[in-house]
């Protein structure tokens, strides 16, 4: 019983499964942007280059780790696995087969919100600990951006909770059996996707890691295994936030019931979940390729003047119309 739960958390449908999804997202992201820019993209490792992210990860882990002279050694080494832990913990609360997650609690959405905030602050810690010029500038940008997108992100994620009268992700999925919340709260979904782009540091909000301005941003001083972990974490966050969007706005793994046998239907639900996950991921891939980077003051102003009011308007509408 316990071994089964541990296997679910660490292997399938938990951590290992989502790490492979993260690699798949990285490959799809690179392929999509390449196609949109008239390039070929990854081609060599595996069929159509699908194993390129895996190859990149293992190549990086075997490279030399350089520690800058003034770096905070403790955070520099312990930070990357803690940064990785944030989305890795978050995914165990995501329902993948039917409306139940591996681990579920009445208040797990709040825990997930805290994890998202922790992830951003951990990135700032890492940039600060690296003690480099570029990472310091990037850290300032990261924090400024974080204070801009965090509030609308929370409001966007609380809106489905209000609709479902539940702070449990599994509870919110169950409440969408008849109607997906993207229909009832489309603005919240848009706000979530925009805020997720900022959380993931994807264009047009890739300001903290703007390669043409500040080298590698807050990751500049990292190399070898810590850099491999940081890159993997960013892809895992990509998959995690997409899965969260699927759970809170697109009904999670729920869809038309095709089989009376629960085991067969669970397989179908898993298929629904994967399709929805790839659709949300694809939306993010396309947006991030199509848009150019904006400046940090423009980003913060955009979040405070446009996105936050939008999230509040949607929340107010929901409370007025749908609150029972």
């Amino acid at each position, binding site marked *: 019983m316990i071994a089964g739960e541990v296997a679910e958390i660490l292997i399938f449908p938990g951590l290992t499964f989502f790490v492979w999804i993260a690699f798949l997202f990285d490959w799809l992201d690179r392929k999509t942007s390449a196609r949109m820019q008239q390039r070929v993209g990854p081609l060599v490792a595996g069929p159509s280059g699908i194993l390129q992210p895996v190859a990149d990860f293992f190549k990086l882990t075997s490279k030399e*780790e350089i520690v*800058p002279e*003034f770096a905070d050694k403790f955070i520099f080494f312990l930070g990357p696995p803690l940064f990785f832990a944030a989305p*890795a913990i978050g995914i165990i609360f995501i329902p993948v087969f039917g409306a139940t997650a591996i*681990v579920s609690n009445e208040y797990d959405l709040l825990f997930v919100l805290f994890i998202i*905030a*922790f992830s951003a602050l951990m990135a700032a810690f890492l940039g600060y600990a690296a003690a480099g*010029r570029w990472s*310091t500038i990037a*850290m300032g940008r990261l924090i400024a951006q974080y204070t801009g997108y965090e509030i609308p992100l929370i409001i966007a994620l609380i809106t489905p909770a209000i609709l479902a009268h539940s702070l449990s992700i599994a509870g919110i999925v169950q409440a969408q059996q008849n109607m997906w919340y993207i229909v009832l709260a489309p603005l919240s979904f848009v706000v979530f996707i925009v805020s997720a782009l900022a959380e993931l540091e994807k264009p047009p909000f890739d300001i903290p890691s703007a390669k043409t301005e500040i080298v590698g941003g807050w990751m500049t001083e990292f190399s070898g295994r810590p850099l491999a972990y940081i890159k993997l974490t960013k892809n895992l966050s990509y998959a995690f936030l997409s899965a969260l969007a699927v759970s809170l706005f697109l009904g999670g793994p729920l869809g038309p019931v095709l089989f009376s046998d629960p085991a067969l239907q669970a397989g179908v639900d898993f298929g629904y979940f994967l399709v929805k996950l790839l659709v949300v991921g694809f939306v993010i891939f396309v947006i991030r390729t199509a848009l150019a980077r904006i400046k940090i003051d423009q980003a913060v102003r955009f979040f405070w003047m446009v996105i936050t009011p939008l999230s509040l308007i949607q929340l107010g509408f929901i409370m007025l119309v749908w609150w029972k």
Partner: protein
Amino acid sequence: MNRRMPALDPFVIAGPILVVVADVIVYVAVGKLGTKSSGKGGKYQPFTGGEEQIPARGTYQSELFVFAALFMVVEAFALILAGCFASPTNFYPLLFLAGGGGVILVVTWWLILVGGMRY
């Protein structure tokens, strides 16, 4: 009102701990693959082409960073308090209020001690 708090699934606590432990074990194990060096120079030193390298940052204090830390503490405090909305008694709201207030007190104390309030 006779509402009772549901029993807590032990894996709600054990699951995240398990993930962190597995994560750190894999991280340490993977670390055996690569070589390490420390102390001198930065990552881009081999690529400076003879030009003077950008100096290391050295000691740096960021008020923005302190602000972000406070922002996150208050946010966590607000989230936990929000989680008490269905609490059958006032025990949890008071507990989290005291906990959150204590955290803010400690952080503010630390901020004053490190000179964050000095202008």
